């Protein structure tokens, strides 16, 4: 068998873009090695998403009702489906959840795994996964030598290409099994805004914003663009914003299509988290700031003037 099994992800009952990205990537791999693409969604409402996934190449869309997220429960359920489908390749999102269950799934399936892949190609019937290493200062290409080849894939790293798959809907009887970690409560007070990890646009503020009272200037631009709000460590350490917004080595690694850095110097630890963004805009008073070395578009100016002007300009064109 040379099938590809993709694990998708939902958020608040909606299909995350990564599900299509991985299905599309899975389709390309399956076409190269001669197999089918099965996309698994953890939901009791799989019919609602089958069309979207069929349109990007899913031959089968499998709904598994594993209840609320738990890494053990998801790993048990996904492994049961792997045992049934016997795929050659498994693609999982390198999301907060994916990172956790993938590690358990790999061990259960006795598979090698490359985590946080940003490039997938096929050579001699095997997948070659490219991943940034050493904070993006080098890239490595790996093949997995076990029977099942597993990968977790970074959001926004794969293109979504229309291609019709069979799109057959299946409901899996896989269960979460024994879960030994019980969720007691959740605090999602930051929950409704766009999340950094899979945002396709991020607007970030650094020490250049001068104080927490000025976040609205950055947030306005983010809201106008439907972007997530990021921050440098300097602003987090100063207590201006919570650590969950921090981008960088000791914060989140992000790969948006567009990263707008406002008043951020571009320290190496910050670049480690956002250096793989496709387009980078830097707005900084200091023309020698290291951020300009990676910026696609550099604006040497005062952010307190440029950012509000940018917001109103975007408001005009985006309606």
């Amino acid at each position, binding site marked *: 068998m040379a099938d590809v099994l993709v694990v998708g992800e939902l958020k608040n009952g909606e299909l995350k873009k990564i599900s299509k990205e991985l299905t599309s990537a899975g389709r390309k791999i399956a076409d190269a090695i001669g197999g089918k693409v099965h996309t698994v969604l953890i939901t009791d409402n799989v019919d609602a998403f089958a069309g979207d996934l069929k349109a990007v190449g899913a031959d089968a869309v499998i709904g598994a009702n594993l209840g609320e997220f738990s890494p053990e429960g998801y790993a048990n359920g996904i492994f049961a489906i792997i045992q049934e489908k016997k795929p050659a390749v498994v693609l999982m999102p390198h999301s907060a959840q994916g990172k956790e269950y993938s*590690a358990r799934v790999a061990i259960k399936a006795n598979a090698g795994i490359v985590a946080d892949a940003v490039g997938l190609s096929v050579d001699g019937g095997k997948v070659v996964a490219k991943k940034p290493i050493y904070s993006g200062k*080098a890239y490595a290409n790996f093949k997995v030598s076990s029977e099942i080849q597993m990968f977790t894939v970074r959001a926004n790293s794969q293109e979504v290409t229309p291609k019709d798959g069979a799109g057959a809907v299946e409901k899996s009887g896989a269960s979460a099994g024994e879960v030994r970690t*019980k*969720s007691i409560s959740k605090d999602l007070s930051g929950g409704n805004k766009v999340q950094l*990890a899979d945002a396709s646009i991020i607007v970030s503020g650094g020490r250049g914003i001068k104080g927490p009272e000025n976040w609205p200037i950055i947030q306005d631009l983010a809201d106008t663009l439907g972007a997530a709000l990021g921050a440098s460590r300097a602003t987090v350490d100063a207590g201006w914003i919570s650590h969950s917004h921090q981008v960088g080595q000791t914060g989140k690694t992000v790969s948006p299509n567009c990263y707008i850095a406002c008043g951020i110097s571009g320290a190496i630890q910050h670049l480690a988290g956002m250096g793989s963004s496709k387009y980078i805009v830097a707005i900084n008073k200091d023309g020698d700031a290291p951020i300009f070395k*990676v910026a696609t578009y*550099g604006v040497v100016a005062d952010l307190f003037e440029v950012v509000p002007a940018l917001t109103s300009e975007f408001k005009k064109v985006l309606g």
Partner: protein
Amino acid sequence: MKIVVLVKQVPDTETNIKVGEKSINEAGVKWIISPYDEFAIEEGIRIREKSGGEVIAVSLGPDRAVEALRTAYAMGVDRAIHVKVDDYVTFDSTYTSELLANLIKAENADVVIGGRQSIDTDSSQVVVQIAERLNVPHVAMALKLEFDGKKVTATREIEGGTEVVETSAPLAVTAQKGLNEPRYPSLKGIMSAKKKPVDVKKPEELGATGSKLEVVSLEPPPPRIAGRKLEAADAQGFASQLVKALREEAKVI
């Protein structure tokens, strides 16, 4: 309580990385303990300070990994074990987790703590893989840990917020920034760390089945799309140019 803390040696972020064919050129690289592992060491020591027991620092790597264990000693761990592997396994999480899980099994630890990821590979795999191999629960991205006998209450980071979970020891934990403030090794600690014994284990003794990854090649990062500084007379000029560039040239907004 018996606590194992996992300590990985990684190149300092500021270090220049020179890419070789299948591994980096290590000449001139400055090595540090992966920052998240410092939270793991600190948490291990804090648990012992509260509940008694023993903290064992374990590092897998070539000879130089001993330096990381000396630092762990200087911070206050009780024992150190060096899993000495000279070949290139730094990327292979399943091989690493197998060696470490086999070692931890023999030690019969109540808690294994590592960083949420190591900053050289960013894979977030090893500690949870160890949990799976030991057939124990895990708490990833821990921000707070409380033990009440075997019962464990933890706060952890999840997408968009935090979650309180309950589980029980034995378990594995990955440390997120915010779990604690790692202490600096004292001078006295550093001096006495030099003389402390480091137990060396070879992969053969730990019986791993071998690597499941093949490094095909290493390469420098892909070239960035050439950047340019925009020229404008005022903020309004910058704004309209940027909007145009992002919408018509980059087509990202």
